[in-house]
């Protein structure tokens, strides 16, 4: 709901302004539409993909009053005619207030050759942005809250719509904190407390969350730490320790003051944040001899420092940030580009009360379009994802819409210009089932202790070539934290002796031994100077590995096997001797098994059955709650309004809940006869010049009859026992006090 006043009198003066690349251009007509399923699965509404783009078209007015020739199709220097990719912003002015109607991009304009009129399709670009390929690994969430939409928020982050820039190889630490406090790079050593409540706040950590950073060779000279301010009251603090010096950045949203200091040089900078975003991405960097802060998405200021920026940060700490990341970047231009491209309004989430379990694991997506990740979630959880008139992405579940209070109400006889309503028996369901996968986790994550692969017998090494084998995990198994450092148990030629480590049963190991020519059955490890052995492991995506064993120098007469030795191994316990190799271990092995839940309310006999496939997103307990909610909703006849043309109201946004009331006058006094609360799932808006027409898609969630007589059944529904009926009220007061009939 756009929170600006709109109280039109009978004569309404509106003005539509279309800005192309910031310059106002005159239009003759414009229209756009967005449809969504309002959180109902696509199969129930027959409406295609869940991620909906707002699309439309603009017809431009010619530049001169009389046009004597067709306009030049190629852009002149003054920015006209428009070309594909130009940014379009459409505002409507009414009553002295400006309402945003559309933010997006132009697609390819077309010019009519006989009239010279330019028409251009427009899109909010969400569908195109989400065509990006993303890969999200399977995860076991340790000590963090995680909800089903964690992967949706990650997919949006990889498309540039999240609180942080995408994860790439320059990221030393990365945790978006939306939908779950789980890191994508690095680890946090304590749980923090995740908040994900409501729309308008972003999930953030509480206080002093410590970051653990894996040391690795540095590639680029500049260190950057950034975090997003979640709301307008909590002070954000980012700390990074490099070469023993701790750098601290504090940002106060109330005063918009940024303070940068470090433990060896004290306070370095105090600046004021000048950008316009309500949730700015606050960033400081350490360059060679410089520290700096960004005072807006496109400007930064610096101060001199003696800190070395080429060491790997040893740790960090974060307080009240919505997402934090540490990157290394090659140049300040690169960093400036990253900051300029970070969105000013990251995707928001409207929380669900039905999802109450902290998820412990999720499956992976590999080389998948972000839109498919999001669609999978929407289909599984009754979720919706769309962008509003400002281009701000909103993610939510249907139950968040069913709980909302309605924001505006319209009297039907005053505001509705046509249309009809139907009672839909087709959508009435008898049984709602949710079929999904749930996790069974092996391993506690402290170290790679879970055996995920071991062959059932040793194989003989082919001396003529590399011995390659491919191992892939079963479809219902995820391996997380695989130890990819395949260690040879003992390799005398290269002075490698891992016998004690092998005996600890932590990590991945392999061994090449030869069969003793003298004593049968004795497997001996290869000696120094006699053989050259090596083995290595390569991961092939998320689900397969390739293991190579190589025997470079050998004795022709002997046979070599992939096996752990049995001789000369007093350090190794008996059960581990002579075992087929390699043994691969990981921190977790997750076995996914199927579950099915049925909604508690059963609909009428003639209703259909519906099965929602929730994939891995829902815990069985949450699935039960969602099945119950959906069956309660869908077991009754639905009332739907077909594309209702109503008086244009620019405050209404998709996923708003509004009410439509029918009124009559009795003895001169107005009385409501019935009202319907609905979720606005989409609308189409058209402008001819400065006159708007508006047509809404209304998904009714509740119909109330204000007049129907109350019966004894209503009394018994309201009071469970006779003793609860208040004794001090008259019959009329009791009758009036009963709740209105609700359908």
């Amino acid at each position, binding site marked *: 709901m756009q929170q600006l006043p709109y109280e039109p009198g*009978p004569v*309404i*003066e509106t003005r539509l302004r279309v800005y192309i690349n910031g310059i106002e251009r005159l239009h003759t007509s414009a229209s756009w539409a967005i449809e969504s399923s309002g959180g109902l699965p696509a199969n129930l509404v027959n409406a295609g993909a869940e991620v909906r783009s707002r699309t439309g078209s603009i017809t431009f007015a010619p530049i001169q*009053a009389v046009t004597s020739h067709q306009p030049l199709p190629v852009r002149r220097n003054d920015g006209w005619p428009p070309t594909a990719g130009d940014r379009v912003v459409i505002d409507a002015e009414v009553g002295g207030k400006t309402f945003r109607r559309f933010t997006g991009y132009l697609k390819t304009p077309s010019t009519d050759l006989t009239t010279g009129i330019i028409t251009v399709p427009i899109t909010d670009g969400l569908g195109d942005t989400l065509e990006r390929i993303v890969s999200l690994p399977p995860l076991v969430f340790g000590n963090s809250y995680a909800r089903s939409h964690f992967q949706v928020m990650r997919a949006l982050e990889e498309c540039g719509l999240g609180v942080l820039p995408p994860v790439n190889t320059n990221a030393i630490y990365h945790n978006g904190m939306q939908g779950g406090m789980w890191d994508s790079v690095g680890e946090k050593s304590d749980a923090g407390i995740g908040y994900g409540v409501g729309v308008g706040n972003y999930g953030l950590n509480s206080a002093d969350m410590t970051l653990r950073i894996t040391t690795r060779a540095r590639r680029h000279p500049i260190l950057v730490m950034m975090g997003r301010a979640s709301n307008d009251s909590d002070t954000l603090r980012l700390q990074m320790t490099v070469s023993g010096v701790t750098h601290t950045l504090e940002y106060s949203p109330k005063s918009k003051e940024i303070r940068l200091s470090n433990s060896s040089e004290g306070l370095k900078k105090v600046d004021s944040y000048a950008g316009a975003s309500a949730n700015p991405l606050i960033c400081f960097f350490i360059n060679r001899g410089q520290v700096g802060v960004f005072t807006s998405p496109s400007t930064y200021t610096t101060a001199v420092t003696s800190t070395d920026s080429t060491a790997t940060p040893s740790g960090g700490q974060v307080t009240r940030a919505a997402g934090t990341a540490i990157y290394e970047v090659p140049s300040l231009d690169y960093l400036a580009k990253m900051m300029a491209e970070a969105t000013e309004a990251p995707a928001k989430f409207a929380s669900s009360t039905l999802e109450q379990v902290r998820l412990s694991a999720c499956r992976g997506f590999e080389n998948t379009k972000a839109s498919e990740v999001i669609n999978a979630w929407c289909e599984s959880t009754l979720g919706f994802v769309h962008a509003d008139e400002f281009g701000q992405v909103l993610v939510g579940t249907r139950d968040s819409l069913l709980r909302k209070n309605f924001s505006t109400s319209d009297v039907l006889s*005053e*505001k509705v210009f046509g249309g009809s309503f139907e009672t839909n028996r087709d959508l009435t369901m008898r049984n709602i089932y949710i079929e999904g996968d749930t996790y069974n986790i092996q391993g506690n994550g402290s170290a790679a202790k879970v055996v995920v692969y071991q062959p059932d017998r040793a194989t003989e090494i082919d001396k003529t070539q590399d011995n390659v084998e491919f191992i892939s995990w079963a479809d219902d198994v995820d391996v997380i934290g695989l130890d990819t450092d395949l260690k040879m148990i003992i390799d005398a030629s290269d002075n490698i002796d891992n016998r004690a480590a092998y005996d600890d049963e932590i990590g991945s190991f392999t061994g090449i031994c030869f069969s003793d020519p003298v004593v049968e059955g004795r497997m001996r490890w290869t000696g120094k100077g006699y053989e050259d052995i090596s083995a290595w492991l390569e991961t092939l995506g998320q689900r397969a590995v390739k293991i190579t064993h190589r025997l470079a120098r050998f004795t022709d007469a002997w046979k070599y096997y992939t096996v752990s030795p049995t001789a000369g191994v007093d350090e190794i316990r008996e059960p581990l001797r002579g075992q087929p190799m390699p043994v691969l271990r990981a921190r977790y092995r997750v076995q996914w098994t199927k579950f099915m839940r049925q909604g508690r309310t059963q609909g009428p006999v003639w209703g259909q059955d519906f099965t929602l496939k929730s994939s891995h997103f829902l815990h069985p307990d949450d699935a039960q709650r969602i099945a119950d909610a959906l069956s309660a909703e869908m077991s009754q006849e639905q009332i739907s309004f077909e594309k209702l043309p109503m008086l244009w109201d620019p405050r209404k946004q998709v996923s708003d809940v509004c009410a439509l009331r029918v009124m009559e006058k009795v003895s001169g006094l107005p009385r409501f006869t019935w009202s319907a609360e609905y979720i606005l799932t989409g609308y189409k808006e058209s402008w*001819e010049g400065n006159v*708007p*027409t508006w047509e809404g898609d209304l998904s009714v969630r509740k119909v109330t009859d204000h007049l129907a007589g109350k019966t004894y059944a209503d009394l018994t529904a309201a009071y469970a026992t006779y003793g609860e009926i208040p004794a001090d009220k008259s019959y009329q007061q009791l009758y009036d006090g009963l709740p209105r009939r609700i359908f």
Partner: protein
Amino acid sequence: MTGWIGTPAKMHEFLWPVSLKEGIPTRYSIQQAAAKSWAFVTSPPATRNREWSVELDGTNADSAVIRSFLYGAYGPGPFHFISEAASLTNALTPAQSLLSGVSNGGAVATADGGHSPASLVGGGLTVLADKVPVLPGAPVTVSVDASGATELIIQPRTVTGANAGGAKSVRAAGDLMQRIHAFIPSMPATARTITISAQGFNQLACPQVVWAERPSPWDVGGGADSVILLDGSSSFHNFELYSRDFWREMTLTIKEVG
């Protein structure tokens, strides 16, 4: 009604008048609910949206120029159009006569007891209307309602905008609200437009330009600066044997654009 159409460089008269109908289309678009109607304003004040239906009756010679216009010989337009009624009531455009875009003051009672919704206050030198077409050799009277020590100035200009002769300046007699007239009996031969300005006023309203030597009561401007000839039809009804004149009735539609 007769009239003149063309550019300030040359305004062509068309003859002989039969009738002129002026239409001002609606400014509203109505959306109707069961119990309430809503009117959306489609065009801002003083928008160019008038349409005229002109009927003429003349010989080939009388209508040759207008027929050349219809064939596009004078270019695609847009053109200036001053009907005879406009030339004797107010040759300014409606926007100029209502001080649209120039006014900075509120409503004011005019000298004859009438009312103007907008006015100009302050007294700084203000151009009230520019590029108002005039006929060389013809008289022009410019009038305004003003209070204060007003000076009303008419500056004739050539087609390029250079001054064509000296400006005619008239000062108000006294300070009370009065109608001031400035009159040029015959425009210089090189004059094609006039620029009207005023200064020294306390409050000023209702500008008016009349192509005559005497003023007329104020009316909303009837002139147009951006019209096209939309269509025309001729109906031949008479032939003069001796002068070989074909008499034809013509109906023209003139539309304001821009």
